[in-house]
């Protein structure tokens, strides 16, 4: 299977603190991978490094996307090549409406923006200042709408279920499925990397492969549901004990 993203022995530091310590993974075209990890384990750091935010300094290793080494490219170059990210806590930009950003994300006409927003009953937010006073669920919807219009080949989702009430989680699951072509038959062309500490998103979106990240290192790789069940049962402490048993 063709590889879309490959991360090779990635070491990253932020403000002098090592947050990723030799992460490697490979996401084939059309697959969704999910990374479990407790708070502070380096999940957001991994996504931010893939997107190329300069505060996340790559000390060692490579990020290869569509066969090209993008380790040194700025975020907008990566966005242009087909990487998109859903932020966990996006900033408010005053005076700037969601609609304006949507327009800039695409060359599409306004009609499609309206239509798409309406299909998620989000049209009332188009003329709101972006992220200002948005609830947890509204932030997710706004982020996902931006991604749908941006239409990336690799979607990075940072805790998509956090802060979302039960009423909205279903709709957000639907949006993610659409983004990742989960409703269409294979072969899919869109890939995803989801990070989560609760894992509950798996009830709405399927994933092909799961990992556990602890203190900036990826340890486990396997069936996502099995990993999720184990974490639910034993917590991340369980993962630690498991590693001890394996002598790591």
């Amino acid at each position: 299977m063709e590889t879309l993203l490959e991360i090779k022995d990635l070491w990253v530091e932020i403000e002098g603190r090592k947050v990723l310590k030799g992460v490697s993974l490979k996401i084939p075209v059309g697959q969704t991978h999910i990374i479990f990890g407790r708070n502070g384990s380096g999940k957001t750091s991994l996504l931010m490094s893939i997107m190329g935010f300069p505060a996340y300094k790559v000390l060692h290793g490579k990020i290869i996307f569509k066969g090209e080494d993008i380790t040194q490219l700025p975020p907008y170059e990566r966005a242009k090549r087909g990487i998109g990210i859903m932020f966990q806590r996006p900033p408010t930009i005053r005076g700037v409406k969601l609609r304006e950003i949507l327009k800039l994300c695409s060359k599409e006409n306004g009609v499609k923006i309206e239509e798409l927003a309406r299909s998620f009953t989000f049209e009332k937010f188009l003329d709101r200042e972006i992220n200002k006073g948005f609830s947890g669920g509204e932030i997710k919807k706004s982020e996902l709408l931006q991604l749908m219009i941006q239409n990336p080949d690799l979607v990075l989702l940072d805790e998509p279920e956090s802060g979302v009430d039960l009423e909205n989680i279903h709709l957000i699951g639907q949006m993610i499925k659409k983004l990742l072509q989960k409703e269409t038959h294979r072969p899919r062309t869109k890939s995803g990397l989801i990070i989560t500490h609760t894992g509950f998103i798996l009830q709405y979106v399927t994933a092909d492969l799961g990992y556990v990240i602890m203190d900036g290192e990826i340890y486990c790789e396997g069936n996502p549901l099995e990993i999720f069940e184990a974490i639910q049962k034993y917590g991340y402490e369980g993962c630690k004990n498991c590693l001890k048993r394996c002598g790591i």
Partner: protein
Amino acid sequence: METIDIKEFKSAKEAKLPQSLEELSIEERERLKFLGVDESLKRGGEYIQIDAKPFICKKREAKGLEMLPITEALKKYDWISDYFWKLVNPEKDEFTKAVAEDLDDGYFIRVLPGHKLVYPVQTCLYIRTDKVAQKVHNIVIVEEGAELNLITSCSVHPHLSSAFHIGISEFYVKRGGTLTFSMLHVWDKRTYVRPRTGVLIEEGGTYISTYVSLFPVKSIQTAPVCRLVGPNAKASFISIIANHPDSHIDIGGEIRLEAEETATEITSRVVVYGGENIARGKIVAKAPKVKGHLECQGLMLSDEGVMRAIPELDSHFYDVELTHEAAVGKIAREEVEYLMARGLTEEEATSLIVKGFLRVKIEGIPPELQKQIDKTLELAKLGF
């Protein structure tokens, strides 16, 4: 603020007035059109002055509106002496003196009692000839219960080596009248600008002044004095400024709350790419039960520029509510990166954030004017 030697400039009277708009270059016409001199826009009236002389002075809305070049109004009405040089002192400085001694022209606009004009009146003061000083005197009278939206665009020919605009403006808002005065200016990095403005607002009158300057200019210094002399009079001053390298912009304003229950608000938003910006504002409470708020926000985009925010509150009574807030800072890195992750370059992201910062929602101005301000924001290069 640097000194300007007024003697270095020729009298604008020496300039030749074009016969028609067609005589202007395409570039000039584009610029004027952008500033609102546009046949397709609905206007109540139009006054265009080129250098020293009125070029167009035309009413389109017949009822309730009077428009004349000031030189004619001075001849036509004796009573104009009650309004002429009454809010601005001709002895104030060398610039007021220069206009008092040798007036070129200017506009006289009066809206008769109870008339609320549907469409804005557009005026344009344009300097077309190199090295001239344009000396203008304007009088606007909004009579009792009348309403006027006045848009003034000032600009210069795109290729002058220097130009100097001095404008005296005296505005009267009578009982219950409303005047919104919006200035959209496109100067040039070699233009000096010295407006001298006085405003008088009677009981229940409203004055909303919006000043937009997003393009380079050599130097602007202005500090209108606005007196609220009747109960329930209101005044708002909004300035939206991009301060470019080598531009010196010093905008102040003194609002005197001289009657009970008067209120004022001064808002300024400044983006500093370079040069020097001084945002002053002074609110003086000369009566009890008044309210005033002064807000100044500056966004610094470089270390090459200077921004000074100088708010001043003066109260002579205890029962008043005067407040100010000022903040100067830089663009949040986080916001730029957020937009870059959506595929915008750093420049595009910065420009969008600056645009949002400058987009002040102005209460009480007509939507078409808001649109024009938005368009100016759209066209001004706000990246870095």
